[in-house]
């Protein structure tokens, strides 16, 4: 109010007021529009950046979305984030989950055919522990780029991480085996007990008759896989009893538990050029088989046993003079109408090459003779010399049988058709069978012994004996007792006669004294006569002074009666 009143009281004239001075603006008004332009540029750059960063969108299907988190779970390649899970949804048939992944622009190459995706979770297995870091960071999706350039946006995720990443240094090989054993993806491959690779994958053969394993040997150790390398299953424990004692042979503890494959070159001269990629090898069951010289062509033979082959199982060894040359592959029963018998047909696979130089020599011999150096001909000759197949007891405790091809002395002549298919080897009863047969013979003979009549006779004899004994008891024994009494009497009188104070004894002493005396006088006489032989004629002379003494010991012989 005061101001108003002051203005009203003292209104200055308008012209008295100072006029403003001119001051030029340094900035153009329009410059302020630079601010939104800058903001727009920043925004635009963000959009462009984002657009540049946005790579392809792919969908990966997994069995389960365990550990995956929409918007968070990263996709990593060599531990570098190349994308992120955008969302997770169920497939229309609810059988699996579809995980949408937004890849980064730089990871465009991962949206191509052959790229593999899998979920990395903590894994604890016999072969080791992996993915421990994901315990804390959460699971992530691992990726491994393929070779193809063909783009693809739908993938099927692996349930387990692939053992070998693409582009890793090394080579893969294929192993063929009868079964998988305890091997698994990731099982180690050992060379001289150093792990040099792992099993990458396995699958059944198309015909279902075996298993093919793909192994990957890391560089630079892959050069040790040569064209002649032998692979064997190194799982488990190899316990062997030899002349040197008990020997326990294992790979590392991990291999014992989780299985593994080992390879090595065979001893002796061999082809040591490195094997090319994807070479096929056979996977042997153990080192010994792997290192054995190659078996060569297998031959199927058949044997016809007339007796029971209880204890002969498939896989039982076939031995020739104690050398394992093959194994039994089938044991089947047959019926012979003519003989009304049930022979057993045993099929076996033999590897003549296992005979080594012996077989070579036989072959050479056959060639010398101008014969076909075939197994059938060679074996025919041996059969003529008494070669027979026998089912023998290999183990007395379990009764396991094995087939022994052996020369049987005095073998019955057998017919052998070298052209028959399959080759049939004549058989001979085995040692145990023979023993049984002999035992049966003995039993037969024992059977023929007339135990009945023997028993009857024995009975009669025993009755007679009984009567005799009765007679003895009734008559002989009392008489015997009588006799014994007499004897005792006699003995008593004899005893009396011989006792110290008996007259007989005394008389005997007196008699002996007299004899002694007589002997003494006789000696005096003979001494005298010795000194004076003339006394016989002249008679005794007068006694000289006593110089000669009587000898102290009279001769005993003369004393005795």
């Amino acid at each position, binding site marked *: 109010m005061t101001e108003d009143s002051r203005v009203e009281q003292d209104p200055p004239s308008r012209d008295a*007021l100072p006029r*403003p001075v001119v*001051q030029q603006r340094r900035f153009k008004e329009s410059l302020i529009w630079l601010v939104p332009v800058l*903001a727009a540029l920043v*925004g635009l750059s963000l959009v462009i950046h984002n657009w540049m960063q946005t790579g392809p969108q792919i969908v990966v299907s997994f069995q389960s979305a365990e550990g995956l988190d929409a918007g968070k779970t990263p996709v990593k390649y060599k531990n570098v984030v190349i994308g992120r899970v955008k969302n997770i949804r169920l497939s229309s048939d609810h059988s699996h989950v579809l995980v949408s992944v937004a890849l980064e622009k730089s990871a465009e190459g991962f949206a191509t055919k052959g790229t593999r995706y899998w979920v990395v979770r903590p894994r604890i297995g016999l072969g080791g522990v992996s993915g421990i870091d994901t315990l804390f960071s959460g699971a992530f999706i691992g990726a491994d780029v393929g070779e193809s350039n063909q783009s693809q946006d739908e993938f099927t995720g692996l349930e387990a991480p692939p053992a070998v990443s693409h582009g890793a240094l090394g080579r893969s090989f294929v192993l063929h085996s009868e079964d998988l054993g305890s091997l698994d993806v990731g099982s180690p491959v050992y060379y001289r007990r150093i792990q040099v690779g792992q099993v990458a994958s396995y699958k059944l053969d198309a015909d279902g008759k075996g298993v093919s394993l793909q192994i990957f040997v890391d560089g630079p150790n892959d050069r040790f896989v040569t064209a002649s390398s032998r692979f064997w299953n190194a799982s488990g424990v190899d316990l062997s009893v030899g002349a040197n004692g008990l020997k326990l042979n294992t790979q590392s503890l991990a291999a014992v538990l989780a299985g593994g494959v080992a390879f090595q070159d065979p001893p002796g001269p061999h082809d040591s050029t490195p094997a090319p990629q994807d070479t096929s090898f056979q996977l042997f069951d153990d080192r010994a088989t792997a290192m054995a010289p190659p078996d060569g062509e297998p031959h199927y033979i058949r044997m016809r046993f007339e007796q029971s082959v209880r204890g002969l199982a498939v896989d039982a060894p076939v031995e020739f003079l104690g050398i394992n040359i093959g194994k039994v592959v089938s044991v089947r029963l047959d019926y012979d109408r003519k003989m009304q018998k049930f022979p057993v047909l045993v099929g076996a696979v033999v590897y003549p090459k296992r005979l080594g130089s012996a077989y070579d020599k036989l072959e050479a011999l056959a060639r010398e003779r101008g014969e076909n150096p075939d197994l059938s001909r060679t074996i025919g000759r041996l059969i003529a010399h008494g070669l027979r197949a026998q089912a023998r007891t290999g183990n007395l405790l379990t009764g396991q049988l094995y087939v022994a091809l052996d020369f049987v002395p005095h073998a019955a002549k057998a017919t052998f058709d070298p052209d028959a298919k399959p080759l049939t080897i004549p058989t001979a009863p085995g040692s145990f069978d023979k023993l049984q047969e002999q035992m049966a013979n003995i039993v037969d003979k024992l059977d023929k012994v007339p135990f009945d009549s023997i028993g009857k006779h024995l009975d009669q004899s025993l009755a007679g004996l009984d009567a005799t004994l009765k007679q003895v008891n009734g008559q002989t024994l009392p008489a015997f007792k009588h006799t014994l009494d007499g004897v005792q009497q006699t003995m008593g009188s004899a005893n009396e006669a011989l006792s110290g104070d008996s007259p007989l004894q005394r008389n005997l002493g007196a008699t002996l004294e007299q004899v002694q005396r007589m002997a003494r006088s006789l000696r005096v006489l003979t001494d005298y006569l010795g000194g004076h032989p003339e006394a016989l004629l002249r008679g005794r002379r007068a006694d000289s002074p006593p110089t000669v003494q009587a000898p102290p010991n009279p001769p005993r012989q003369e004393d005795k009666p």
Partner: protein
Amino acid sequence: MTALPRAVDLGLIGCRVCGLVCRNVAGDERLDGDGVDDAMACPRCGSALRRRKWNSYARTWALLIAGFILYIPANVLPIMRTASLNDIDDNTIISGVVELWTAGSADLAVIVFVASIVVPMLKFLSLGMLLVSSRRGSDWARPQRAKLYRLVEFIGYWSMLDVFVVALLTALVRFSVLSRVEPLPGVIFFGLTVVLTMFASMSFDPRLIWDGRNTDD
């Protein structure tokens, strides 16, 4: 109201710094005080003499638009990364609000929502409305519009709440492996938005609300 003269009607202009009242010089393009090509300065203290805030409409529009443009990345980009032992969580403003809400802190969620979403939006809408209505010289609800402007100016800096939260958490929560909080680019954009809108409301001249030509003439 229309009868009462205003400074411009009297051909007077006051210095906002030293209070000296000067007269407009009719005929001089730079000193006539009609708001076109004026280049006046106080003869005593030398500060610029302006009838209204310099270039208010353009500056307010420009800053408001810039703020709005930056508000988009501020909401789209994550503003904060919470990394704990087994989890890395990037949060945008709205996802943070949702997280707070689902975690049961409805009150906090409301506060953050109001401070970070409602207030900036309110500012954009209010300032835009004020600018449009003032430019058009509308005489609709002038006292209320003036109140609204004062409100906008007052609540402007409360929107910095989010920025402060992120800054505080980043400084406080640093347990290396166990848990940590990192600011992400979104918070910069958000802060820029808040600053730009504050500048915009500062550069808006509330006197423009009253510059209705219809009633003035």
